[in-house]
């Protein structure tokens, strides 16, 4: 049990998983509530613009469907990030395919910029967004997982399917690029 801010013991993810397996639907609500915003933030910082809620939903549906394969060797959140990342890659692959076959229409540009405007409200956020856009996809993933989610290099390596050493190098290159970008702005 983890002490909650209110002082009462808070159930761990594994305890909630066991409760859900025993038929307690409220445990699923607790788990989703605990991790959904982190998943949304990760998706947003990884460059997702539209359909973040659907992405988070798909991540949980897939995770709960294969929860028996979760052994608790990593944290549940790391495991969820791994699933979400795979879904994002699948989504990008299919988007790339559809872009190759379907011509982009003017209305698509309009809706994309409209969504972007809604997501980025403040100037500081926009600057950060731009600085993250200057990174390679892997650097961006590693950097946001480390800075925004607080994952260790070991956990990041699990999520992105790499090594701790490689994750460290990506992080240091990323912070250098972001720092220079923000200084120049």
């Amino acid at each position, binding site marked *: 049990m983890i002490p909650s801010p209110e002082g009462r013991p808070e159930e761990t993810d594994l305890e909630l998983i066991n409760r859900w397996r025993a038929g307690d639907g409220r445990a699923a609500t607790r788990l989703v509530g605990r991790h959904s*915003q982190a998943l949304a933030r990760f998706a947003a910082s990884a460059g997702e613009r539209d359909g973040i809620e659907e992405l988070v939903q798909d991540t949980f549906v897939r995770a*709960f469907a294969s929860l028996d394969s979760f052994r608790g060797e990593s944290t549940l959140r790391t495991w969820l990030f791994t699933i979400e990342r795979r879904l994002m890659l699948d989504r990008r692959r299919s988007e790339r395919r559809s872009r190759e076959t379907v011509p982009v229409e003017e209305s698509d540009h309009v809706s994309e910029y409209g969504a972007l405007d809604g997501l980025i409200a403040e100037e500081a956020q926009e600057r950060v967004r731009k600085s993250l856009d200057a990174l390679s996809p892997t650097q961006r993933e590693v950097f946001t997982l480390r800075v925004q989610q*607080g994952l260790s290099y070991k956990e990041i390596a699990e999520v992105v399917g790499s090594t701790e050493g490689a994750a460290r190098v990506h992080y240091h290159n990323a912070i250098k690029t972001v720092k220079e970008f923000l200084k120049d702005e």
Partner: protein
Amino acid sequence: MNKCTDSDIQEMLPDLLHRALSESERRRVEAHVASCESCREDLDVLRTVKSAAVFAPSIDVDRVVRQIPPYRTILPETERPAIRRPASTRMVSWLVAASLALVAVGAGSVLLQSNRLPTSPSGMDDQPSTAIATTGEPTKASPAESVVTVGTRTPAVAAQHPHALALAAEADGLSDGGLVQLMNDMDNFDALPGSEPDPVLSVDSGDSL
């Protein structure tokens, strides 16, 4: 500004933001940051990036949970309990299976007979007068069902049935009247054969031997 060379401290800056350091580590990092301009700058960047993540849309937890099926319905195949159907359903399944087996055996028999017995191109109607029964045992089948045509028997088939061969050789030289006479004689023949009779070759009225 000099670049910081303490990589340990640099590694721990994100953990400081997420309060993931032990008390002693936190004090050590904070003391270093207070005296290192490069790390202070890094920490500012990290704070900015961390706070910028709030633009992610808020997730409707209940909506997500509604899409998650209950655990019992998504058990893996190997762990699912065997589903027992009602007895009446099982009986129907057995009857259907038995019927299919009977049909298959029947169809197989017909095909086998078709392969063994050459079919007259013109059918039975062409040789009504050459059909004779080859068995000495009475059968319940009608005469039309239990006759074989001897006039078209091939030597290979006849060699498997010595009696038929004799009849075939004899019948070849007989006129229609002679064949009728032969049939009448056989009707009156009441002696039992000295060995097992040939199996009855029961064919459909459309087939011929």
